[in-house]
């Protein structure tokens, strides 16, 4: 029988270079698939690719939009990554984001007058607490009742969205809003300041960068972060060292929930300016991809969030310019994660050339 002269060979130790190269490889594979998809849809593929990936960034306003959309993605991704490293699978960031928006938005609607100039910090804090409280439910159920945080956090996404819809169809609806399910617009004093006049990216982007640094310090310089990493990589060693598993679960979920809540409240007192039923085009789910593509590392996550943000902008751009469905964004997001998982093969394996004579022997 003829043998294929190339074989997969296990590396002696995982390749550090490939860990960094795999996301790039995946991004290129996604681009190549994009060419095929656009050609299949009867568009000039190179032109379509240009419209998707370059056009959105050809103005200062476009770059601002990139930062604007990258902010919630990175905030959610940074939090989720802390959990993923510790083997805690919070996939309900979308729900925690919604709760953050509800709590922060609620404070903005009803208590802002009493708070004076402290209004914005209090609103942000309410958003963080709302997201953390929503994530506390899966934390409690996993540590106390052994229940999968994956399923619970996901079910809570649907419940959070229904809760928001319930509020906006009832008590919180703008009485002068022509019956639209939305609250009245927040007072101008409560809106986050924009970074550069004429663009929409807000102070939240800076907050996100600060949190990225904080998350790097937490996970690589603090003992609590080390304990979480050991629990994820080597549960037996963590148990032997006496690291408390419930504490890690709580920490991972509260931190990621709080970060997602912050993302949510920054959206509603940022670019949206009021509470409405659709506050996120799936940022909480896309953040799962951001976390993986960013290699669960803060720097990587910020970069991955920028890429993912570009995918959202590109989707809008091809819809506007080429009349293609914006849903192509979701397709690219899914492909990117798949290619990344496949490319990760080369972290542990390499392709080795096996001369035929040896292969037969």
């Amino acid at each position: 029988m003829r043998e294929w002269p190339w074989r997969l060979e296990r590396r002696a130790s995982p390749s550090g270079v490939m860990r960094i190269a795999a996301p790039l490889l995946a991004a290129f594979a996604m681009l190549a698939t994009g060419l095929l998809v656009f050609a299949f849809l009867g568009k000039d593929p190179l032109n379509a690719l240009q419209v998707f990936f370059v056009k959105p960034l050809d103005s200062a306003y476009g770059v601002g939009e990139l930062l604007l959309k990258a902010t919630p993605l990175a905030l959610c991704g940074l939090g989720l990554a802390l959990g993923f490293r510790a083997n805690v699978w919070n996939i309900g960031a979308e729900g925690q984001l919604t709760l953050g928006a509800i709590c922060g938005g609620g404070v903005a609607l009803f208590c802002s007058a009493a708070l004076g100039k402290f209004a914005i910090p209090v609103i942000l804090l309410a958003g963080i607490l709302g997201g953390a409280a929503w994530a506390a439910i899966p934390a409690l159920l996993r540590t106390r009742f052994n229940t999968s945080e994956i399923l619970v956090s996901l079910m809570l996404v649907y419940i959070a969205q229904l809760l928001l819809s319930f509020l906006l169809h009832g008590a919180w609806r703008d009485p002068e809003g022509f019956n639209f399910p939305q609250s009245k617009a927040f007072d101008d004093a409560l809106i986050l300041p924009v970074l550069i006049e004429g663009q929409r990216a807000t102070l939240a982007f800076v907050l996100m960068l600060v949190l990225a640094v904080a998350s790097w310090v937490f996970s690589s310089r603090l003992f609590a972060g080390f304990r979480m990493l050991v629990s994820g990589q080597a549960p037996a060693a963590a148990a032997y060292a006496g690291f408390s598993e419930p504490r890690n679960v709580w920490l991972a979920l509260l931190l990621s929930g709080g970060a997602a809540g912050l993302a949510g409240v920054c959206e509603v007192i940022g670019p949206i300016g009021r509470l409405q039923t659709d506050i996120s085009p799936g940022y909480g789910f896309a953040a799962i991809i951001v976390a993986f593509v960013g290699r669960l590392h803060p720097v990587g996550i910020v970069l991955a969030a920028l890429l993912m943000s570009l995918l959202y902008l590109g989707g809008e751009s091809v819809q506007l310019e080429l009349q293609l469905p914006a849903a192509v964004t979701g397709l690219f997001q899914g492909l990117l994660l798949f290619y990344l998982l496949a490319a990760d093969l080369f972290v542990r394996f390499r392709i080795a050339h096996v001369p035929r004579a040896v292969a037969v022997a």
Partner: protein
Amino acid sequence: MSSEFLIAIFTGTVVSATPLIYAALGELVAERAGVLNLGVEGMMLIGALAAFAVGVSTGSLWLGYLAAAIASMLMALLFGFLTITLQTNQVATGLALTLFGLGLSAFAGRPFTGMPIEGLHALRIPFCSDIPIVGPLLFRFDAAVYGSILIYLLIDRVLGRTRAGLQLRAVGESPAVAHALGQPVARTRYLAVMFGGAMSGIGGAYLSTAMTPMWVEGMSAGRGWIALALVVFATWKPLRVLLGAYLFGGVTILQLNAQGLGVHVPSEILSMLPYAATIIVLVIICRDPKTILLNQPASLGKSFHPDA
């Protein structure tokens, strides 16, 4: 309360349980072989779209169901290739499959949004369908409902009473031992995952061609995740999947008919019920760690390397 209303509640329960039965039984087979596929939601959506698209284009719902099974099986094959051959993390890959399915179905389904389709017909079984009360209760469903019962009987029989079922369970409990005894671990897992995919596809097809005959982006609305929860709830036993699915179907239908029953609760709060119920039953089942330890396939979620 009229008997017609009670009959409507009963049949509605059975109908809304049917997609869950297919998806959860399929996932049960994959999990009994040791593979946790969190991509059920994505595979259901692909199945729903494939059935609708092929059904509309060819006019044959049977071809639609076939297409749904094949399309979702291909998705599962992709998942299998990544997790079984390339040994990627099953949780991450399953999430990827769901996100990919959401994106792909939203993208490819654009032209079909808002199109009409003639849904699956209820069967007319001569004589039986016309018996008062019993007829409307048991003999006026569509073929897919009866199919779900047949699939249950088949899976229960094959898993529990045949050599192939024993091999599959052995692979799920201890792939190392199964491998040492010469069982093809990878092949068994591939087949189990692909079967699970096909079942999810049919479950999805039922959504878009029978329950609500139309294509809507994201129309599975978490049913794939509820199916995953059902497998845990059922402690990996087929009969309990069936009962659990009817329980959930009942919750869904009661919620939809609550206004008719004179319950005045806002519809958003009622719509939370199936999701809240999922969390509650999970807590009840998982509360005792021994229940899970004794029933969960021992190698669930773990990759197997024959050379390690």
